[in-house]
């Protein structure tokens, strides 16, 4: 009985995978035929049905660009880069979309440079291995007999190096740093205000495609922070998180 259930579940899984592949093929065909809006819908459907992937968001972004939805395209290029910061075509497409949206070029930080060069998951594993190797070597050296200073020192150094690598991953991984980030998709942008009231003083006008960090929510209002550190309030309508909610 149990084995039959397992077989059924497995079959269902493969059938859903095949269905997802069909949607994707259809989306690509539509894209080739110039039916970009339809292609975008199908790409979205395919992404809903499969695990997130940088290439999928990139393709969706391309379809949205072709159908003139630059802001949504920029969001999906950014999502592709969150999943794979080394995805050069997505980076250049995002840059072009930002130019089309009239957004200023963002300054490259050291985190950007790190993630462009080093695969973060590999760095996480390397950091973890070094940390624990250092920890165990240090422990063994501490309780060993005889001359143990050098071994103890090596263990501590390796442990610290692994810890630094993990800290770098923590600071650089866009899945962590952009966890609370959102993008303005409202047509015509939105206003960044000093308090959660539409009549309050405007700090800045946020054009479509602006990226900001959401700190908290109060009713229809988000309290957030701009990349330049300014904090203020803005309406939740048309604000879409970079990392889709689970």
């Amino acid at each position, binding site marked *: 009985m149990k084995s039959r259930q397992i077989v059924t579940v497995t079959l269902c899984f493969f059938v859903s995978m095949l269905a997802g592949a069909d949607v994707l093929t259809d989306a690509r065909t539509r894209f080739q035929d110039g039916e970009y809006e339809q292609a975008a819908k199908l790409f979205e459907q395919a992404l809903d049905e*499969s695990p997130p*992937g940088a*290439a999928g968001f990139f393709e969706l972004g391309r379809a949205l660009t072709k159908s003139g939805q630059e802001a949504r395209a920029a969001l999906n290029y950014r999502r592709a880069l969150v*999943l794979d910061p*080394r995805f050069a075509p997505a980076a250049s497409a995002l840059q072009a979309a930002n130019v089309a949206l009239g957004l200023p070029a963002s300054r490259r930080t050291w985190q950007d440079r790190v993630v462009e060069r080093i695969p973060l998951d590999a760095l996480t594993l390397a950091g973890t291995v070094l940390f624990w190797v250092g920890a*165990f070597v240090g422990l063994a050296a501490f309780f060993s007999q005889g001359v143990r200073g050098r071994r103890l020192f090596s263990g501590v150094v390796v442990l610290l190096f692994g810890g630094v690598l993990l800290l770098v*991953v923590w600071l650089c991984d866009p899945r962590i740093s952009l966890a609370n980030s959102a993008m303005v998709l409202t047509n015509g942008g939105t206003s960044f205000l000093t308090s959660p009231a539409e009549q309050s003083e405007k700090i800045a006008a946020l054009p479509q495609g602006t990226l900001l960090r959401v700190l908290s929510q109060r009713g229809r209002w988000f309290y957030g922070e701009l990349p330049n550190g300014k904090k203020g309030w803005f309406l939740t309508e048309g604000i879409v998180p970079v990392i889709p909610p689970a």
Partner: protein
Amino acid sequence: MKRLFLALAFFLPICLSAQEVAVGLSAHQAQVGEPIQLMVTVRGARGAEIPQKLQVNGLQINLAGRSTQFEMRNFKMSSTLTYTYLVVPQIEGEFTIPSFEVKVEDKVFRTQAMKLAVSADPRAHPAPGYPQSSVPMPSDQPPVPSGEGEPFFADLILSKKKVFVGEVVPVELRFYFNSRIGGQVGERPTFGGEGFTVQKFSNAVKREQVVNGASYVVFSFQSAITAVKPGPLEIPEASLDARLQLPGQMPQGFDNFFGNLPIPQGMFTNNRDVTLKTKPAQMEVLPLPKEGRPEDFSGAVGKFTMEASVSPKKTAAGEPVTLRVVVAGQGNFEGMGAPVLTGEEGWRTYPPSDKFQSTDAVGFTGEKVFEFPLIARQDQTRTPGVRFSFFDPASEKFVVLTQDPLGVQAKAGGGAPSTPVPATAPAPGDTQPSSATPASTPDIAVMAGGAASWTALIVRREFLIANAALAVAWLAIALILIVRRFTRSRAGLEMARRKHLKDSFAALKKVEPGEFYEKARDHLVLRVSGGKDDLAALAGIEASRLSPELKHALLQILERHGESKYAAGGTPPPSVEERRAIMTTLKQLEASYEK
């Protein structure tokens, strides 16, 4: 059709309180000797001072006349003056008619400069640089609009009647309204049919034009069509909705009441919704020739040039370079496939991204940029070459453009790069550029590089559990080692001995009578000599600072044990009193050691 009417009122007779000056040409292309009109329209004024002659080398421009129109609306009178210059091109070329001053009462207005393309050939060339019409428009059409004399009419102007499949043909839809009519026009015309595709329409361009002496306002919409199958092609009519204010008759009895008073023109108007329709047209669509068609022909039809560049010029190991190929010109950019790479051995290549930038309103002229991400499999000093083929309808031949490899310093990476395959769907007609490129389009999950989760590995549950397990293991090992080290230390040993003594003394209380001497001796030996033997215990007792009585009692215990063990026939088990006495002696011993 979307019934969104332009908010702009499109004609002169609309009541204007402010003065306004506009200028326009009846055509922007002409042939040598073909006269065209330049009209200066002055609104809201009774007169204006304008130059009699304009000086432009190659053009003869003289003021030909003036007309005045009046309109009354809501009992407000407005007037429109139209000054007409006759422009006669003398030579072939492109001309700019400069701005000039128009003095209206005490104000001075400056007109806008205008461009005019003059050709010697009756098949006129496009007028590059003309702000509203960079799309080449036909001159083999009748220069006189079809509906002359009518209050409103429409024309469909095709740049060619004989085209190839896939060739982009600019079209222009012109909607003429007699300048005495006011009203509003729809935002976009309705146009389409079977066997061809239509590009988006440009925004309406409004100008004034004199047709057989009558002044018309012309709304022109530019677009382009592409035939998709060979054979005769029927282009159906295009239509545009408009709401017009047509001159009406005065109400019955009005003339009797006012008698012979002069009634201003335009005082009475009728609103009327109309649909202007062009006449259907025919085209002949030819198939692309099979002979001479390159194997990598990607479907591009038009006239193109190609340029390529590479960046960065120098990369670290495994880093990608981008080969940027710009295809510029006129043609079917939407249906164009990517160029193909040649000699890409030693490179890992991926399908390119592309971006089209149009320089006209309908996407006929512009440039398409293809960016190929390349990663060196082996150290490379030259990029792959690029080849792009297209069909040129003018020469009716296929043309192949090639780009030689460009210099670059790219180092091969150690393993497969994590830079993902950009899962770009190939553009229509794309050929796969290399064997490294996926032959088919696999599933997103397969093609995607990078992570397949929104949660970073460092905060993923499995990762945290594994690290927690390692932490527990580390702590357990640390604890074991600490305990082990303590038990081997002097304090640890002493603690163990004390515990042993305590256990041994406690066991004496419960031991069987037959074993009492044996256990009492063991406890005594353990206490005074660390558990060695009787001789060591004797020596220990002698050397100790115990009282002589206690020493004697202890020696008695050893002696009793010897007797019970070695005497023939053995000794009886100790009596209760004797047992109590021995326990008391041993307690005293413990107490003396505690001190």
